[in-house]
């Protein structure tokens, strides 16, 4: 209960910060919207040239791509921890976090909320509706609910992996270039996994399970029965990875060395 109320308190703090800069908020909103529009056009142009990939039609691939954008927007809005090492470890901001009576990871997530990233979800939905209508997909009564569950599962997978990578900073004091590499790898999740070879498929399913952010849950809505088992595994994998990452975090905080003054 306390944590839910804290979430809204920090959210209002974030909004106040944003509203401080009136001109900025309009410019940013406009430029975000514009970049999403460009993104949308880009997707349609790129996929205009592909027809069939290992049993997936052009529109199905676009649909998966659109789905992927939604959990990844949720991820960028709430797990803004790509600069964790520099901001919290090197600059020692974690000192401040650790003197407050809220779980440290939760505080960092709250502090770094970036709601404008959620705009990406709109693009994702637009892409899905475009591809879905071309494929003639029907919307069932349970689809919206499963959609929310799958999106949350995907965002947790994403978040879990990135939290684990951030945790490396607790043990190694050097800066790691793993974060940008991981962003690249995460992009593989937006294409059908059976176009890759077995090893990559295994990695994307069980080790860095980005396939659960895009292709597996999207396959459910596309009615691909052979993938259903994976689709329903999405929230499970999400919770498992997220719990593991929090456990790793709790261990890591004990190893925190602090920054010198």
């Amino acid at each position: 209960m306390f944590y839910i109320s804290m979430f809204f308190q920090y959210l209002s703090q974030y909004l106040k910060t944003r509203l401080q800069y009136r001109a900025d908020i309009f410019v940013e909103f406009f430029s975000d919207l514009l970049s999403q529009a460009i993104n949308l056009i880009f997707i349609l142009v790129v996929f205009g040239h592909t027809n069939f990939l290992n049993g997936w039609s052009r529109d199905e691939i676009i649909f998966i791509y659109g789905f992927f954008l939604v959990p990844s927007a949720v991820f960028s809005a709430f797990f803004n921890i790509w600069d964790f090492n520099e901001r919290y470890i090197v600059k020692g901001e974690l000192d401040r976090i650790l003197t407050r009576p809220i779980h440290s990871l939760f505080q960092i997530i709250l502090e770094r909320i970036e709601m404008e990233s959620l705009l990406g979800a709109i693009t994702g939905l637009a892409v899905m509706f475009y591809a879905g209508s071309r494929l003639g997909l029907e919307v069932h009564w349970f689809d919206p609910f499963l959609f929310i569950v799958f999106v949350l599962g995907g965002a947790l997978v994403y978040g879990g992996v990135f939290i684990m990578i951030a945790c490396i900073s607790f043990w190694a004091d050097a800066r790691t270039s793993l974060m940008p590499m991981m962003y690249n790898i995460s992009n593989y999740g937006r294409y059908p996994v059976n176009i890759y070879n077995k090893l990559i498929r295994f990695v994307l399913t069980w080790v860095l399970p980005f396939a659960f952010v895009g292709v597996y849950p999207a396959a459910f809505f596309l009615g691909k029965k052979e993938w259903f088992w994976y689709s329903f595994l999405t929230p499970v994998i999400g919770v498992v990875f997220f719990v593991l990452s929090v456990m790793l975090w709790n261990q890591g905080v004990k190893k925190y060395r602090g920054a010198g003054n």
Partner: protein
Amino acid sequence: MENVIEVTNLRKDFKSYSSRTGLKGAFRDLLTRNYKVVPAVNDINFLVKKGEMVGYIGENGAGKSTTIKMLTGILTPSSGQITVNGMNPHKERERFVQTIGVVFGQRSQLWWDIAVQESFRLLKKVYKVSDEDYNSHMNHVIQTLDIEPLLDKPVRKLSLGQRMRCELAAALIHNPPLLFLDEPTIGLDVLVKLKIRDFLKEINEKYQTTILLTTHDLTDIEALCERVIMLDEGKVIYDGALKNLQEKWGEGKELQFQFLEKVGVSELLNLTQGIPVKWEQDEKEQIFTASLEDNDELISQVIAKVVAAFKIKDIKINETSTEEIIRNIYEKGAV
């Protein structure tokens, strides 16, 4: 009186590696590293009672900040026990920090872009402080620190002195019985310093707040603390009353002379032969300092002799300052 802080055999080791020289060394570092275990805090023990104001002093790198960070639950000790407010700071961190206030002079608790009162409001929620408690306690704090007119300004528009006063108020929102201050007056002007000191004295009297303070400004310590704990290379080298330190080490007095004519140290030495006095010459070659025992007879003798022999521009009699005492202690390395 109950103990607020109990520290026994506390130790914190940092593992650091030393790099080898040259390109060849850099390649070897890649494969195997020379690790060195450096104790930042080395088997320290102390107790702090409720309502005490303790100065925690030491040179840069003596282990002050490391100790404070272990006491506040930020760092895990390598070995030893800490009990603060009856809890183990690191193990029960979230419950524990509810009972302490922390001010790091070089780090901000406040949200940079929004008004100070918004930060206060959020911290009030974070520490689950009721409206009643907040109003009765914080109104007083805000008045004493004179930050009422600053409350609706964003933090980034405040001067360092203004910000520091707000930081202090922010650390006290939950009225903690124990307050840690790490360099709270760093870079502040005299007036702000005085205001902060008066305020700390006041809350110490009013709420019996225990205060542990680290600072490089010894005038803070003189003004506030009866007790000091002195640290050197991770070890406690003195723990006791500040007064004792002054009595034990500040025995001598200093006479400073400035002459109208040109005088050499040798002439002064000749003049005061037979009297136990040490002469020093200032770099500007104008001021001569005689250090001697705190003995009225001797002091008068020296002054009489010097005044009779040379034309004087200025004379000063100084007691050894705390700063000098502490410098002496560090140079000799023991108390």
